[in-house]
């Protein structure tokens, strides 16, 4: 894995690795038609290598359906991977049994996109936030109650609201309840799956700021999943761009936004709305739709929509190639991998 091994030269002060993922694949079987064809499957995540360092925020971006949520759920073992391995803090958790996993679950939590379906409508806010403590048998009843009050205060909810039910709160407040629940066990890793996409623009920045404050206070590591590149630009340290189940570009935020390599990333960035109506901008409109993840295109998955494509793109899948400065891209044109291209030329000749 070039991605995992050749990571020393450029940034010597990198943190310790908290999560790493090797060759992770998740296929969902599709049963289509009357005569079930079991060979059809959705390639939700199709060979992802990734590391997340302690204390950083990794932004995971891509269109809907590109597999970013599935990747997050795989890391938490909410889905069973088809193949590949997942390490959390050096422990291979890919095949841990449920009881072994339970201990590690204290250290990894998730914040959901939809604040309406993420809270059980029949339970009080107090029991929702306190549930992780109850599940892990932490503290006495009184200690748990005190901890819940603390957590509520920390996320900006009035502790008097403990006995209320989720429907009595607004979307932003509900998202705060979800955040408090995720914090209850003092986790190291929080996967935030589009935590602000369902919120009003006016509340988004409040929740984002809250997430940033909490990160500072509790040494949290975030995997921040989003389709909104402007939010990711604000919160992330590093960004991974996904397309059809693969990471196509990965690097420090500044590199990704300012020295974009992959044409898909370029198109995404060009689609971010600019608040200045006078501003001239070069908007890239991609042709066609996202291809079906059931039968992804051959070679580079982006080639049918790419304006840079050359013959090799249709036949050979570009590896995620290190171009220096911790910047990786999978593109034959912008980040050519010498050996892959040489091998292609040999077979073509």
């Amino acid at each position, binding site marked *: 894995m070039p991605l995992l091994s050749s990571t020393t030269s450029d940034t010597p002060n990198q943190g310790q690795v908290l999560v790493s993922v090797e060759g992770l694949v998740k296929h969902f079987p599709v049963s289509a038609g009357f005569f079930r064809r079991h060979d059809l499957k959705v390639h939700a995540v199709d060979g992802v290598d990734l590391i997340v360092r302690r204390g950083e925020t990794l932004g995971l971006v891509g269109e809907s359906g590109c597999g970013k949520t599935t990747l997050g759920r795989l890391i938490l073992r909410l889905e069973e991977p088809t193949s590949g391995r997942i390490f959390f803090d050096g422990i291979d958790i890919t095949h841990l049994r449920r009881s072994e996993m339970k201990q590690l*679950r204290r250290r990894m*939590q998730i914040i*959901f996109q*939809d604040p309406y*379906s*993420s809270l059980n409508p029949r339970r009080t806010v107090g029991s929702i936030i306190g549930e992780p403590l109850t*599940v*892990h048998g932490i503290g006495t009843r009184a200690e748990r109650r005190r901890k819940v009050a603390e957590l509520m205060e920390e996320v900006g909810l009035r502790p008097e609201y403990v006995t209320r039910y989720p429907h009595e709160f607004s979307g932003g407040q509900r998202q705060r309840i979800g955040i408090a629940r995720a914090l209850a*066990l003092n986790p190291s890793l929080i996967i935030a799956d589009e935590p602000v996409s369902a919120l009003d623009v006016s509340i988004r920045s409040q929740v984002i700021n809250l997430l940033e404050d909490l990160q500072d206070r509790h040494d949290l590591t975030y995997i921040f999943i989003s389709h909104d590149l402007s939010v990711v630009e604000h919160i992330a340290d590093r960004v991974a761009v996904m397309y059809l189940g693969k990471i196509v570009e990965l690097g420090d935020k500044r590199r990704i936004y300012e020295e974009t390599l992959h044409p898909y990333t370029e198109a995404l960035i060009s689609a971010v709305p600019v608040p200045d109506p006078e501003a001239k901008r070069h908007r890239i409109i991609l042709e066609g739709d996202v291809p079906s993840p059931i039968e992804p295109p051959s070679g580079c998955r982006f080639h049918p929509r790419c304006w840079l494509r050359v013959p090799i793109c249709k036949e050979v899948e570009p590896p995620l190639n290190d171009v220096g400065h911790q910047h990786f891209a999978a593109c034959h044109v912008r980040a050519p991998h010498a050996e892959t291209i040489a091998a292609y030329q040999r077979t073509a000749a």
Partner: protein
Amino acid sequence: MTTLMGDFGRRMRKNRMAMVGLFVVVALFCVAIFAKYLAPYPPDRIDTSRILMPPSKENLLGTDILGRDVLSRIIYGSGVSLSVGFVAVGISTLIGVVLGALSGYYGGWVDRIIMRFVDVMLCFPSFFLILAVIAFVGPSIWNIMIVIGVTSWMGVTRLVRAEFLSIKERDFVQAAISQGAGDARIIFLHILPNAMTPVLVAATLGVAAAVLVESSLSFLGIGVQPPDPSWGNMLTEGKDNIEIAWWMSVFPGLAILITVMGYNLLGEGIRDSLDPRLKI
């Protein structure tokens, strides 16, 4: 919960038919509980001097062939109908919720076995199945309750299974899993309370169906045995004399009609008020 229940109450009160149903059900309960005080005569008091009397001041709904007061027998019969309805539905709901929960939550082969079992049970025409079983175990009110219960749980199982399948994918269940909560906690604390709405509706409608089955069994003579009064066996006695004493069959028949209608209206009212989108 406060405003959830508030909304429910408000919609319920606005639904006039549901309120009629609620009134009928509450009234029936009172009649069944206070039968001793409401009935003008003991149900089995034979008065050979007043045989087949039409409705009059002394016997509001007339008397039967042994001179027993029809009104008193209907009042005492309400207890039979209600207890059969409730116990039978209790049994079928319990079986249905347990099997549906297992099926929907665990999926896989557990689901396949339970669902095939449901299909098999649904293949039997249930009334004839009940007849056959009662013929073996003998007619008694307890046997009727149990047999109705164990032959009518399939609908509830499917409902609960469907609810579990959809609620299992909701984020709050995923959150519970990601906290490391156990199966029991997830099933009983997170999924089941959110799956009970259609079960409540199905149970209310189920009481109506059970009352009807009990009446049918008693009518055929394999339910509640005379001289104990039940609306069904009163109908049987009535049909032999229908040309000379219409009141012997009409009033028990009306009692069945009103009861079944009351439960159906109430059940549909609860359904519409709990969730206007829910249709069973």
